[in-house]
């Protein structure tokens, strides 16, 4: 059968659900899938780090969430499983997410370096007990880990059943051909569009400068972050930086479905030591993994808009507003994404919310929603308007705590001439008739009767009205 490449591609799509990667023990990424930008750089790093420090045998599972070992947020657990003598399956699964405002990564939660979770078909109870005893360990964590291990074992067996019953084999030649075709395809998609250079500066609200120099020539892209500043409160790992760049570029050029070592090879990134994109332990990474990644996505989008002037697109608001409610050991994270930028002939898509039930949140927390809608924007206007952000207005009915975070609200990067800025994210508080704006990042108690308004940013407009 000569369509083994298509079959292999389909098998990878079926097997890799959620945030996941399949790679060889030699470090070749066969496929990375996921909806989070950092996944595209961090999963393979996690696989390699786990292999380096733990000699994984077939069936063994390692666990990590340490961003400096290839993890992302501390609430995202990365499992590395040796599913055969030469294949690694890396799967990232989420625990309850919350906003973390901390001065060091140790304050952000339980940090797990590569740890052997299952060896020789036995769960490592000693390590599980040690994790459970840690003061920052989330509730029911060990039960959750056991469940994930059991699921992964079943899924790995299914993969082998598939290979056995269909007679399909993954050979070194197949992998080589697949990666080569992926590289050619990615390179061709880049070559089909304009070449050029661009420089973009994006400044975070906390003052960090992101300077991005992009060059596109001969189907290859190089990004140099020279000139970017050191970390103040935002810090990101190298692998997460790579992932954010790759994801933004592959979505723009349309090869996000072939994320593997072949397509990775078209992108070269250089960063000066000491800048905030090369975070070092014990710098906290939550803000980097959220707002920092949004800054990279913004910078890449602007650079591409400069180079590809014919497909000019206004700026999407990449930095979501995260608002975390805390009440009696319960918390709920509301993530309000921003609107998309407009382009010639097309309005930007408005922001949407998924998986939120207002009734459920009102049952769990002493709040009352007053309004949830797409916000009326004054920015983002043009011949084609930018996508509207969201507005959530809620009334606090009993004292509660909340922490929140957003960014990219103060400094406006330079835009291409046909584009206009959208509205930034905003938060405000009404207390006993007084109205005040809240900072982009904070943690405080709210009293009964307080009315909080959360607005996520809107996308930029395109063309003159």
């Amino acid at each position, binding site marked *: 059968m000569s369509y083994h490449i*298509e079959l292999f591609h389909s098998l990878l799509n*079926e097997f890799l659900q959620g945030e996941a990667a399949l790679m060889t023990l030699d470090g070749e990424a066969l496929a990375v899938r996921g909806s989070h930008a950092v996944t595209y750089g961090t999963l393979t790093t996690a696989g390699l780090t786990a292999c380096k420090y733990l000699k994984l045998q077939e069936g063994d599972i390692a666990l990590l969430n340490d961003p400096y070992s290839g993890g992302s947020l501390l609430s995202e657990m990365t499992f590395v499983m040796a599913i055969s003598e030469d294949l690694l399956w890396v799967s990232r699964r989420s625990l309850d997410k919350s906003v973390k405002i901390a001065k060091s990564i140790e304050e952000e939660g339980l940090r797990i370096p590569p740890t052997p979770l299952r060896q020789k078909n036995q769960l490592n109870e000693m390590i599980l007990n040690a994790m459970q005893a840690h003061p920052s360990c989330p509730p029911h964590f060990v039960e959750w880990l056991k469940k994930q291990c059991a699921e992964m074992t079943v899924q790995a067996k299914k*993969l082998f059943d598939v290979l056995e*019953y269909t007679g399909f084999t993954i050979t070194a030649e197949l992998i080589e051909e697949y990666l080569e075709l992926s590289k050619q395809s990615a390179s061709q998609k880049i070559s089909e569009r304009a070449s050029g250079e661009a420089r973009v500066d994006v400044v975070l609200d906390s003052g960090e400068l992101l300077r991005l120099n992009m060059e596109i020539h001969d189907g290859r892209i190089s990004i140099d972050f020279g000139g970017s500043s050191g970390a103040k409160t935002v810090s990101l790992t190298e692998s997460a930086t790579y992932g954010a760049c790759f994801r933004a570029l592959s979505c723009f050029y349309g090869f996000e479905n072939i994320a593997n070592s072949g397509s990775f090879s078209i992108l070269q990134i250089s960063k000066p030591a000491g800048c905030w994109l090369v975070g070092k332990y014990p710098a906290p990474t939550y803000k980097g993994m959220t707002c920092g990644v949004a800054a990279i996505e913004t910078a890449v989008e602007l650079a591409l808009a400069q180079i590809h002037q014919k497909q000019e697109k206004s700026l999407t608001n990449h930095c979501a507003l995260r608002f975390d409610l805390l009440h009696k050991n319960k918390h709920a994270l509301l993530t309000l994404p921003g609107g998309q930028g407009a382009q010639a002939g097309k309005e930007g898509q*408005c922001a949407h919310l998924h998986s939120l039930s207002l009734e459920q949140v009102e049952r769990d927390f002493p709040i009352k929603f007053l309004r949830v809608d*797409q916000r009326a924007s004054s920015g983002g206007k043009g011949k084609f308007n930018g996508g509207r952000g969201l507005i959530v207005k809620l009334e606090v009915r009993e004292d509660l705590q909340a922490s929140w975070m957003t960014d990219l609200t103060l400094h406006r990067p330079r835009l291409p001439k046909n584009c206009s800025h959208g509205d930034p994210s905003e938060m405000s508080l009404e207390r006993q008739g007084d109205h005040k704006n809240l900072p982009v990042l904070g943690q405080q108690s709210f009293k009964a009767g307080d009315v909080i308004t959360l607005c996520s940013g809107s996308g930029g407009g395109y063309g003159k009205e």
Partner: protein
Amino acid sequence: MQSSFLLGVSVGESFAEYSLMSDSKPVAQKRVYLSRENLKQSLSQFMTEHADKKPQHAFISLRLPKKLLDYNLSGAVAHITTEGFEHWLDVCGDANHKLTSKDLLFSVRERILADGKVEIALQEEELEAIAAKLQLIECKKVCLHFLHSSRNPIHQDQARLFLQKKGLDVFTPEKTDTPNEVARWNKNALNATIAGVHADRKEEILKALEGSLDAGHIYFLDSVGKILSDENSAQVDSLFSAATALGLNVGAPAKASVLYLGLENFLLISSSTWSSSWNSAWGPLAVNHLQTKMLGIQPTLGIHLNEFGRFDFTTHQEGWEPGPMFLGRGQKLSLLDLWSENSKLTKLQGLEDRFSAQGIQRAKNSLFAISKISRTRDNDLNHITKEMQSLSMQRLAMEAFMLRETEKMIVTGPLASVFANAFKKDPHTVIETQEFSESQAIALRGYQALQETL
């Protein structure tokens, strides 16, 4: 079961199949292609042809074409919500699939709290104004979506009675324990949207069966394999009735997953795991049904050159209107065109006399044209066809093995015989080449459900 006759009718998006059963065995069966044959006439004709086998009961599963599940095609529906949440369904939905029209969104100043207490009482004056507007624009259907109405339906009931008195068709979300208002409201909105089309389709079936059996003995099945009792939720529930009947009647006795290879869809149906929500194009919908997975490989997937410049299947289903090129009207090559000369496909009821030699030739020309720009440089049409057939069978088997819930799997449906070879190496898979398994399952499931109600 007594030796009386039962009728099972499965109406899909493009095909309808009828099974007349006696003692759990089929005695007469028929499939019709709804683009070419009328549902009412074909069913009526089927009953006339078998007038000697008068059924005691008829059980129906009714799905509507996807293009009709859209407010643009199914008529205007107004939405009245709690003030501040007029656009809540739009905010939670997909930008490209909407169940609401922005001109028909209204709100009233009422509020019920999470504990069920009334904070702001509903004022009928506000409803009066809305009803007047609706009458002015001749909008007949209205959905009521009030927060926490499942905990305390006082405002919902008050508004329903008020608007019904004004002559409007009022749709309210089911009273369930589901705390997710989005899933409940979405279901209600979809029910309202398709209510008219659904009622017309239902009427056609009832008229076709007039004279053959009493209307009181015609039952529509719901998404959990029971007789439909709640008319308000009938429309969306009936979308899943056929899959649930297959899971319960084909899969459950053998404790096996069911791979249903139908002409419209390839589905993997669990025989024991229930799902309370359907992740539809409009967002989550609260529908209890047996877990059903739509496979990535489907019978009417298009064929194109992939990112590597090689032959592959698209992710878009071309559907049966106008259908594969072998039927003579379609312009786009699809997966089943690869089997246009396969005797197992050409003999299938409903299709057997519809194959067009001209259409088959055009499909071959189309394949040849694509091969000219393919990077594989293979212009041998027979070879390409065989390879693509093999790819589709392997992909089908891979997906089914990967997604099945139980090791044991039963493959059934009209296309089971065409794709049977894909499963020959798996000792846990049983091929049931019963072409009419869907309508049979509906008849048997319906009869069991009826017995349970007695």
